[in-house]
């Protein structure tokens, strides 16, 4: 208990000033008040580079453990499963040729589910409807491996999320989530990743959300494994915000949030597998 309180105190000190200038509000109701970063883009770059240098880049050059998972993903893609005697490769090409570029538009609006469909959800739909196979549990090694393989087919290609037409309300809902205050700390995503980006917390520099969605699935050292953007959001950030009941993987709020976040990365090349601390 004391340790927890102390942890809280330290966290408060680390984002010194943050709490005092923001009055808690319920951002679900009414217009979203967008934040702007506290520091200039140049200052952010400077701090980010000073802190990280090229450590992750250097490590990635030496290899990324997720490469092995990528191989698993390809093997699973080619493996027959389910009652219809098919593999993903039966329909999408032996090496997934027909899915080249497909990942650049995900998550996207899907009229069938009248909402946002993410890659893992699409993969599970294909398993159920096209293969007669059991859907995978989200964020477990098999589905992460296949997602990684499918995404790797779009490596280097720019993300191009469309938020037009029927997708628009879901983008707005995702943005609302991003600004919704949650948990014991009464924080929202935007405080850390927009307003205070470039400041230090949790032994990290808070990053801007521009680069949050271009590199998943990612091997994270803290996890000692490879996971999805949703694991990062739910099991790290939302948990750290001290929310009692964590949201489910692929629940509507989380899909909308991922949609909002991926749109922020529009134009950036997909680079998987990622590597982070």
């Amino acid at each position, binding site marked *: 208990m004391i340790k927890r309180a102390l942890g809280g105190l330290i966290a408060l000190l680390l984002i010194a000033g943050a709490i005092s200038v923001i009055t808690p509000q319920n951002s679900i109701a009414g217009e979203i008040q967008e934040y702007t970063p506290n520091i200039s883009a140049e200052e952010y770059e400077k701090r980010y580079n000073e802190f990280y240098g090229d450590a992750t880049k250097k490590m990635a050059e030496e290899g990324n*453990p997720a490469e092995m998972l990528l191989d698993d993903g390809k093997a699973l893609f080619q493996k027959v499963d389910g009652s219809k005697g098919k593999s993903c490769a039966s329909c999408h090409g032996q090496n997934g040729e027909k899915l080249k570029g497909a990942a650049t538009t995900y998550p996207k609006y899907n009229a069938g589910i009248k909402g946002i469909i993410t890659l893992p959800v699409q993969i599970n739909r294909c398993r159920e409807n096209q293969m007669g196979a059991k859907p995978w549990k989200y964020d477990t090694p098999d589905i992460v491996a296949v997602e990684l393989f499918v995404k790797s087919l779009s490596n280097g290609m720019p993300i191009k999320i469309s938020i037009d037409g029927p997708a628009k309300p879901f983008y707005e809902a995702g943005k609302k989530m991003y600004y919704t205050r949650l948990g014991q700390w009464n924080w929202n995503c935007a405080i850390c990743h927009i307003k205070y980006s470039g400041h230090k917390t949790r032994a990290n520099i808070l990053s801007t959300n521009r680069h949050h969605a271009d590199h998943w699935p990612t091997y994270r050292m803290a996890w000692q494994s490879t996971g999805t953007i949703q694991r990062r959001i739910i099991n790290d950030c939302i948990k750290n915000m001290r929310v009692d009941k964590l949201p489910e993987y692929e629940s509507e709020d989380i899909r909308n949030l991922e949609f909002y976040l991926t749109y922020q990365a529009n134009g950036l090349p997909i680079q998987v597998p990622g590597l982070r601390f």
Partner: protein
Amino acid sequence: MAEVGKIRIKLPQGIKKGEVIPVKALITHPMETGLRKDKAGKPIPAYYINDVKVYYGNDLVSSMEWTIAISADPFMTFYVKADKAAPLKIVYKDNKGGTFEDTVQINPQ
């Protein structure tokens, strides 16, 4: 963890004779430090790989002493001069007496 000791070794494609190549290897292992406790507060015993040897043909080309500071499912990259057609073997040993090994063939062109 059902697959403790599962090893994957990855070589680059199209190896040329005499070329220095990166070899990547991953072994599935919990690498328990012995410093953690389970939910009931009982210490989880240490369980980690502490000895790794790499053979290229008959030569021992690398020997490593690992400790609890290495992550679960350890991944490593090392470099070998591919100067002969020969098997490359990696042998991992852990503190509970487990031995795990895997071999790939290096065939420089």
